């Protein structure tokens, strides 16, 4: 651990300021709390909001997991994990079950999270109404007045034009019947998981906003009675572990464009393969005894 910096990089005053914002966020689920985001040693857009929230939550006993696109070995996940290993000296793990704090970009792990876990989302644009109304002064008013008609009109226009709601990620949700919230750019496949046992914290560094969804909060993906929300997802199983219930990434295998679909959640896939599940294009895992022999 590097002692030139305070535990988890940020000074205690800054962490206290962030924790205050987090508490306010938890008290008003789905409300975007302005906070004095600091310049971090990684660029805006790389997860500075999530990193600040994680820094404010970490204790020396925590075990941290960092994923990007569902995987622990994506370059930016590696970089953020290394940052906290260096500045906080906390234990890190790829295993979802072992982690107490999980920082994520664009996914929620497949495995259910528990009450003693915190999941921290990196958020690029926290404002779900931003692409309907570019002005922050206006959108804050709209939230205050619960004026969400514009969003419903947008969804309706999608249906009128395409026969579907044409939003496939960052699909807006209604939190506890009050605030419309951006779930960060997770695929809408992950939306139903947001009613969970773990505490969900959202950090948007460049936009200087923090928001939260406390455990067991009601999270409803916006829809219409006659066009109910559909989570979508792949129709086939994972090529490596044969999971039928997991979100898959598509890979291009050769010049002729052959495809293979693999779990985006790399830990979930590993766990299944370790348990003996084999997909169409996978090979059985060697057991420990075979390795020793």
């Amino acid at each position, binding site marked *: 651990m590097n002692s030139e*910096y305070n535990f988890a*990089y940020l*000074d205690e005053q800054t962490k206290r300021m962030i924790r205050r914002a987090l508490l306010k966020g938890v008290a008003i689920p789905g409300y975007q709390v*302005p*906070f*004095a*985001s*600091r*310049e*971090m*040693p990684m*660029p*805006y*857009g*790389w997860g*500075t909001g999530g990193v600040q929230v994680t820094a404010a939550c970490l204790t020396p006993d925590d075990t941290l997991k960092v994923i990007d*696109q*569902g995987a622990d*070995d*994506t*370059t*930016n*996940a*590696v*970089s953020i994990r*290394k940052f906290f290993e260096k500045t906080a000296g906390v234990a890190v793990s790829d295993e979802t079950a072992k982690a107490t704090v999980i920082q994520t970009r*664009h*996914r929620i792990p497949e495995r259910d999270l528990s009450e003693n876990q915190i999941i921290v989302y990196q958020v*690029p644009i926290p404002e779900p109404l931003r692409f309907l109304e570019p*002005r*922050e*002064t206006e959108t804050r008013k709209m939230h205050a007045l619960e004026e969400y008609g514009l969003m419903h009109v947008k969804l309706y226009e999608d249906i009128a034009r*395409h*026969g*579907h709601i*044409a939003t*496939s*990620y*960052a699909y807006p949700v209604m939190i506890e019947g009050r605030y419309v919230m951006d779930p960060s*750019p*997770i*695929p*809408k*496949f992950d939306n139903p998981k947001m009613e969970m046992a773990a505490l969900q914290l959202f950090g948007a560094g*460049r936009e*200087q*906003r923090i928001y939260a969804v406390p455990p067991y909060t009601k999270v409803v993906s916006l829809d219409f009675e006659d066009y109910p929300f559909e989570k*979508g997802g792949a129709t086939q199983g994972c090529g*490596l572990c044969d999971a039928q219930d997991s*979100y*898959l990434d*598509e*890979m291009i295998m050769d010049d002729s464009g052959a495809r*293979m679909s*693999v779990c*985006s959640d*790399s830990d979930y*896939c590993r766990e299944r393969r370790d348990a003996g599940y084999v997909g169409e*294009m*996978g090979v059985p895992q060697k057991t420990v005894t075979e390795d020793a022999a």
Partner: protein
Amino acid sequence: MYVAVKGGEKAIDNAHAWLDELRRGDTDIPEMSIAQIRSQLALSVDRVMAEGSLYDPDLAALAIKQSRGDLIEAIFLIRAYRTTLPRFGGSAPIKTADMACMRRISATFKDVPGGQVLGPTFDYTHRLLDFKLAAEGVPSKAEKAGVVGDEVKPHITDFLNQEGLIQTEPGSDATPPDLTREPLELPASRALRLQALTRGDEGFVLGMGYSTQRGYGRNHAFVGELRIGDVAVEMEIPELGFSVEIAEIEVSECETVNQFAGSKTEPPQFTRGYGLVFGQSERKAISMALLDRALRWKELGEDNSDSPAQDEEFVLYHCDNIQATGFVEHIKLPHYVDFQAELELVRTLRKEATEANAQREAAK
């Protein structure tokens, strides 16, 4: 069989090593020192200090060296370092009227008390490549024409003020807000706007200032005064009960004098735009003053012509180059998951469209 891509960690380490090698470049050529950058690339150093919001020429020079001359990257290094620094308190306002000017010009009065001082400017150089410099020739020396900078030079706008021709700015002893410690909330005070602009991207502020001259929020500015020089920074030490000088910094200050026909609330008089920037950067100071004046439309009861330069939210949310470069460049990070979701959606929509077309064809 397919093996999932691994090795992000190794790739990062190798990339960093390669970057470091390229930064040093050809090892047959002597390495640049911080002192060389500081003294020979002084205007780069000034820009990094101004937009990095940290007055430290040595650190700025180090950042320029480390970033291979990419100034926005250097500004980012300085900003990231700056956030880790403890704050001891706030200084007293600097007194630019007491500035030891190395340059001081006015576009509104031919002669003024204290005189015009051209100073070290590119303004009247002919932009011809000087091949002597390529040969690393003899150092040039300027002859000293008397003492410069010792005489107190009052602000030129103060002379206009004697006749009440220019608007008096309301004074305030309130602690100004701090953009780096509090989230930006709108509407912003003028002090906060100026703070954002002085650390804003030079190119952005220049472009916005330029747009006001071309009719987008026009406010017809004269450069009342432009001065560059050293000012003392004083801080009140609570234990002592008085201010002591803790540093001397170089700043560029620009005050514009703008036509103002008067409005429902104000009589006709001149108004001001203000620009103040660390180091020697008159381009930025002038642009900032133009933009500051354009942003004051509401306070002066002027019409809003819907120009970008009059739009506080637009200007303040987009002038920071560290925020901008981060978010623009982040789209190169993996977006596999979102893209996959879009792929599925487009496939579904296409399938439905093709089927609908086929049915229509069949019905013909």
